[in-house]
């Protein structure tokens, strides 16, 4: 199956998705999957696109960048790799939340600690808030914790790394959030 991955980054404004989808349509492409987000003023999106007529990616890329360049956006395309490797073993969903003053190196240290237990981050958000005139960062990691890892072990590792940066941390099974907030 002929597929490619398209990423588009740049200043957010109305009409971006309309431009992208129209150009893909005129090349006979079909959008299979898409995710987009906006961070402050910046738009970012990733598409998985089916290219049944095998149009050259350079051509499609050129058409996209010509149209989007004037909108302070850039597009990047690459062929979709072979099927993914075998899925990871069974895991449990946990949510790690840290809170504290934003310091350089925090995200690197925290994510390295998460990776040290083979936990896979499936979703990550960082929210900067002002607390008493100081930038405070709340980081929310949704992770898949392998069944062989104990949540107390994960908590201990997280507490150790967060203590170094003066961060508060909580580690909770994901179900509690859905249970409380969703009908």
């Amino acid at each position, binding site marked *: 199956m002929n597929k490619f991955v398209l990423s588009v980054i740049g200043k957010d404004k109305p009409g971006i998705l309309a431009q992208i989808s129209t150009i893909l349509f005129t090349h006979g492409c079909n959008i299979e999957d898409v995710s987009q987000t906006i961070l402050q003023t910046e738009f970012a999106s990733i598409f998985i696109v089916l290219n049944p007529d095998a149009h050259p990616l350079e051509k499609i890329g050129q058409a996209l960048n010509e149209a989007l360049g004037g909108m302070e956006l850039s597009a990047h395309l690459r062929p979709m790799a072979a099927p993914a490797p075998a899925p990871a073993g069974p895991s449990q969903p946990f*949510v790690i*939340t840290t*809170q504290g003053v934003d310091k350089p190196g925090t995200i690197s240290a925290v994510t390295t600690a998460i990776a040290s237990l083979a936990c896979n981050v499936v*979703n990550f*958000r960082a*929210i900067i808030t002002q607390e008493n005139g100081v930038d405070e960062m*709340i980081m*929310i990691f*949704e992770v898949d914790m392998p069944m062989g890892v104990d*949540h*107390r072990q994960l*908590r201990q590792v997280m507490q150790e790394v967060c203590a170094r940066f003066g961060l508060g941390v*909580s*580690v*909770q*099974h*994901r*179900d*509690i*959030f*859905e*249970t*409380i*907030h*969703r009908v």
Partner: protein
Amino acid sequence: MLNDREVLSTLSMIKNENLDVRTVTLGISLLDCASHDLPRFTDTIYKRITTLAKDLVAVCDEVGDRYGIPVVNKRISVSPIAVAAAPFDSRGMVEVAKTLDQAARDVNVDFIGGFGALVEKGMAKGDLALIEAIPEALDVTHRMCSSVNVATTRAGINMDAVGLMGRTIKAAAERTKDRDGLGCAKLVVFANIPEDVPFMAGAYLGVGEASSVINVGVSGPGVVKKAIDRALQDNPGAHLGELADVIKRTAYKVTRVGEIIGREVARILAVEFGIVDLSLAPTPNVGDSVGEIFQSLGLGAIGVPGSTAALAMLNDAVKKGGAFASSRVGGLSGAFIPVSEDLNIAAAAAGGQLCLEKLEAMTAVCSVGLDMVALPGDTTAETLSAIIADEMAIGMINKKTTAARLIPVPGKKAGDKVHFGGLLGEAEIMPVRSNGVSAGFVSRGGAIPAPLQALIN
């Protein structure tokens, strides 16, 4: 994918608003342990309790830890001892009480409930022996709680039992006078007692229940107060209907926590999951108070005019939100107003905004009754019985549970401070108007007949 608000508001409820699971209570039936032989009976019930409950505390801690929700108390409720231990006299009953206490200590639960009797219509031999044993049993044990049901809507009020309980409370206070009458803080007199209460001191496992069952008591008055405060910050003109809706939504969230924890604990222990008791149960800590909710709703203090209406709204909204959140709701389910266990209520009682009579009026619309009320030591047994009878009448006529946990503190008078410690808290003694002038009524005994279920105005 979770959204940020779901994560942040959950964390805030736990860290800043004292959201917790107040109690996971393992109900254990002792009915099949019955024996005429006292050592055999105590041996059997000790083994039954310590076997079934040996992992209770560890499992509750493990599950609470996994979800990041503290399970504050782990407790045990057993079949009414007056039934299970019916052949024994009061000395035997005291031995049973000691066994229960020892079992509670050995499995490290903070309370065990069920040293009780159901005497709404009459008292059998075992019931009398148990009630007679209560003062000594509460004196020589630490973790054991006792409850006696003296009235129901279908049977009426057993005034002989009400009279006896007044004297029993006095005796329990006297036996524990060196501890401000602490024994009475673990003794409740009920009307319409539910069979599945997880909260102490009224927890017991009803005779209609399974062999073992997990019942959960959720709390969260702090969460409700903060939710009201936030709603008023966003919309200072919010009317009461809107605030009732806020309470309802919040009660839903709080109850969901109890549901998930209870089901998981029951699954691991391989015990049936019983009910969630969706009560607002305060502790003597700032920010964990039912009384503070009244102030958030715009009243000067709990007990001032408007308090009964506010409590009615609060109680109903808690039930509505909670009933939707749980597949099985039971127990007391509503708002508790225990005087000494709630800093704010204790302060209102000390400040004179809340008097005994207003407290009684409020119990007509909330889930329990005259709870943890310290009274002058010279309050007569007959006046205690009369106060209990009034409270039972409210429950009987309104087809609801009411209860009285009264502590006539030996040697102390109205305005004096009493300190029970821990969750039982501290308070000033509330004055009793017209003490000692109800004996003529109470001493008549007999029964107040069950009320009509029609013509209900």
